């Protein structure tokens, strides 16, 4: 029941803030209430450790046999780190929001907290049915929020395309479940037969938002830092958490190497774009795709611990970077702890990332990781675009570092305690070589024009739009032809002809 308690705290808090917004919109206590409640939620997630491994199920949907699978949530050594990461991200968003122009926007805090509640349910979902429902909720929430916040036809089209892509991902999750049921297995992640797990991996990849590749928020949108970060990272974590449940046997397929190749290609491309992004917010979709791709590579190579490590890095490192809006020299240096966390060096958050044998994939994975790390360091140390601390009131100057610091502290903590991937030595030789490559690339970045971020900004604009309608044009033409034949004056005759064909085929089949 601790899972229900933790997520309820976030939901109740969100509702309380909505109440504040309607009845006492100018009330300053709203922020303190949010911080207090959020900390309570975080503490409750830490309390899970006292009972680990546990779960709870809701009553069945009906007495009939067709609803034999209950909605179930479970906490264990692979779901807890995600839960801690999400809860910490929620607090960090609230603490750092004090420095932003839209501080008064209580509804965005409520949204972040509600999303965290849903995120906690998503990462602890123990079977496909449960995950489908939580994904559905996240998708609808994201669709509504994005449609309300973006402006302009192109952005609207991208929001819809992104929703459709995620819905297709949910469809693949159902398909994986059906393949499992068809093979006579009970509905659940741990029982997936060979090949079924692959559909889940594809579902997860689709939902990561690689298609459409970039979703820009308008500069005036309140979604840009706080709530936007929450939306992207909670959604990503909820899609990746499923990978930790997959037994390696379920990924055995002749298609696995091809899928690995595609995912590594995505990691390389997004890593490259992340490195060259003009600023961290423009590069945020690439950060998400790159880290997700690394997480998927770990899962596909039969290493769920690595997958969780990358997933948590996505949330914690990404959160600390995307929430940094104040120029603070010490904090900028502290952000470099994130580079250690994503380096896969011993005792880091991602130390268990490459425990499985990568064989020929090693160089490609190392390059992708290097690009991602170099990009992270570059964006962490970037001074331009951030506000000077002197422009902020003194109390926010105290709160803001505390928010970023919490995310950094969690990275260190998760490297040492609390889950199956903590205190790992890991593949240290690979980690050292990636670290050396990262130093080399970081040195080279300002010295070679190829790494020039302005060209990358151009690249960001070249993402194709209208892909859906272009893809559909031939089908449109065909459907119009058939429709006009069936619905036109001779439609009845065509109908009878098709019918006679059908009956004669069926009659022949029966003989």
């Amino acid at each position, binding site marked *: 029941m601790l899972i229900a308690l933790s997520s309820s705290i976030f939901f109740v808090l969100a509702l309380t803030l909505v109440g504040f917004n309607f009845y006492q919109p100018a009330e300053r206590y709203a922020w303190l209430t949010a911080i207090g409640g959020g900390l309570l939620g975080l503490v409750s997630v830490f309390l899970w450790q006292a009972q680990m491994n546990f779960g709870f199920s809701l*009553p*069945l*949907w*009906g*007495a*009939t*046999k*067709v*609803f034999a699978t209950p909605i179930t949530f479970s906490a264990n050594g692979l779901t807890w780190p995600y839960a801690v990461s999400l809860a910490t991200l929620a607090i960090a968003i609230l603490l750092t929001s004090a420095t932003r122009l839209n501080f008064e926007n209580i509804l965005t805090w409520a949204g972040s907290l509600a999303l965290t509640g849903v995120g906690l349910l998503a990462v602890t979902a123990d079977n496909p*049915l449960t995950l*489908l*429902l939580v*994904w*559905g*909720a996240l998708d609808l929430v994201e669709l509504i929020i994005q*449609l309300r916040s973006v*402006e302009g*036809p192109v952005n*609207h*089209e991208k*929001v*819809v*395309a992104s*929703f*459709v892509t995620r*819905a*297709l991902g*949910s*469809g693949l999750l*159902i*398909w994986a*479940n*059906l*393949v499992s*049921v*068809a093979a*006579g297995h009970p509905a659940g992640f741990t029982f997936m037969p060979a090949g079924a797990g692959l559909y889940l991996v594809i579902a997860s990849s689709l939902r990561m938002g690689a298609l459409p590749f970039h979703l820009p928020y308008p500069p005036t949108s309140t979604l840009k830092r706080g709530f936007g970060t929450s939306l992207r990272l909670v959604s990503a974590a909820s899609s990746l958490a499923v990978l930790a449940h997959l037994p390696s046997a379920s990924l055995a397929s002749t298609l696995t190497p091809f899928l690995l190749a595609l995912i590594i290609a995505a990691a390389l491309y997004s890593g490259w774009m992340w490195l060259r992004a003009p600023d961290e917010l423009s590069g945020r979709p690439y950060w998400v795709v790159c880290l997700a791709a690394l997480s998927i590579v770990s899962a596909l190579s039969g290493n769920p611990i690595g997958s969780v490590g990358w997933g948590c890095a996505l949330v914690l490192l990404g959160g600390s970077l995307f929430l940094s809006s104040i120029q603070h020299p010490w904090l900028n240096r502290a952000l470099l702890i994130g580079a250690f966390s994503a380096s896969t060096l011993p005792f880091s958050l991602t130390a268990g990332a490459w425990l499985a044998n990568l064989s020929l994939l090693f160089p490609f994975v190392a390059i992708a990781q290097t690009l991602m790390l170099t990009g992270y360091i570059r964006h962490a140390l970037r001074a331009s675009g951030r506000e000077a601390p002197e422009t902020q009131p003194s109390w926010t100057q105290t709160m803001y570092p505390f928010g970023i610091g919490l995310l950094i502290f969690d990275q260190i903590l998760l490297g040492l305690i609390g889950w199956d991937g903590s205190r790992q030595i890991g593949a240290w030789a690979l980690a050292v070589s990636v670290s050396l490559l990262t130093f080399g690339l970081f040195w080279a970045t300002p010295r070679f024009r190829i790494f020039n971020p302005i060209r990358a900004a151009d690249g960001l604009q070249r993402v194709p739009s209208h892909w*859906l*309608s272009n893809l*559909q044009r031939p*089908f*449109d033409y065909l*459907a*119009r032809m*058939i*429709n006009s034949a*069936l*619905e036109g004056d001779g*439609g*009845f005759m*065509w*109908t009878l002809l*098709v*019918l006679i064909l*059908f*009956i004669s085929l*069926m*009659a022949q*089949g*029966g003989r």
Partner: protein
Amino acid sequence: MNAAVIWILIPLLAGLLTLLFAPERFSAILGGALAVLLALTALIFPIDTALLIGNFSLKISASVQVLGRSFTFGVADGPLLAAIYGISALWFFGTQASGTSNRFVSLGLMIVALLTASIAVEPFLFAALILEIAAMLVIVLLVPPYQKPQRGIIRFIIYQTLAMPLILFSGWILAGVEAGPGNLSMTTQAGTMLGLGFAFLLAIFPLNNWIPLLAEEAPPYAMGFLLWALPTFTLIFALDFFDRYTWLRTSQQFSSAMQIAGVLTMTSAGLFAATQKQLGRLMAYAAIAEAGLVLLAFTVQSTEIVNLIFLLLIPRGLELAVWALGLSILKRESYALKFEELRGVARKYPIAVGAIVIAHLSMLGFPLLAGFPARLALAQELAPHALPILFWVYLSMAGLLIGLARSLTVFVLAPEGAAWKLAEDWVQVVMLGVGAIGLFILGIFPQTLQPFIAQLPTLFKHLGQ
């Protein structure tokens, strides 16, 4: 009191009286209240069972004879009648919000009464005749006064009328089959006739081209009602056939034909939906796809077949009501409901657009919405025996999803800086809100349908036992 009087004669007369005497502004409330009353009566008072209230004994007798035919309701019919009149009440209450004239309530009441009679009539073959009469009343509902009927409505009545002799004729042959079940050629003839009859009635591909045509011509609310009412009762009629004739249930050939017909209907509807540019037609194709899905449910080799079919049918009433009401509201903005006239309409009618999107998502089986539990359950039942069939089901769903993406893109394509408004009145907001919340409740807690569904398998002697 007699069951047939309560659930057939009273709504029939009420419909007639509403048409003649009721003022337009009260007709929605009158019709809706009567339907609620009939639903509650069905839920509270068991048929053919004496109920003691103090010293007062109350019994609703099960059967009545009319012209040598009997209209009989059993105990198990109670939840079914409650569901039918409950959903009808939603449709009638929604008429005020949809701006439909009081003809809808009066004719709707009469149509529902006739369709209810079709599930009670004995010999059951007479249901085909009653369905035909109901279809004729639908014409009055769909064609506005003083307007010439167009191609869709003419094709509709032709197809419905062709179904009737085919079903009656197959019934006549089936009587012979019952006498000598070994006669294989007779069985095949009867099966083909029956299949054709129901293909016309249920609008199986390619006999469904009247639906998109009609959806373009007719008022969306009336069209939605037609898409809910006629197929629902036709399917109950079909279940009756299935229950009575063992060879129909056990025939592998008939089952394969139904599977192929279901897949063809679904896939074609999904693919056509993906290419539509008119909102009425999009709703029509979603309804056709669902008809294909129900046909697949008939091929489930399990005792859960009745539960599955009703799990699909009951939310369908709500989905179509919400969708059709949303379309009726948008029709004020664009009479033709064509994409090019509806660009950015979400900024002006956010609730109507939201309701349409939610209803569409529900009909394609999006998680959290009413259509999801039934589709998941059906897919899980079919998966062990027919996984490739499910691939085509998915293709159809993908087509519906693309249709949704295209319409949603049009709805939100507002020019930069366009302000958000709320052009719907409060009645429309309440009706759409209640409908949308209902879709979520049925999707998250499908056990709320349990009181209606639990007893339904007992309606049939063999199916679901």
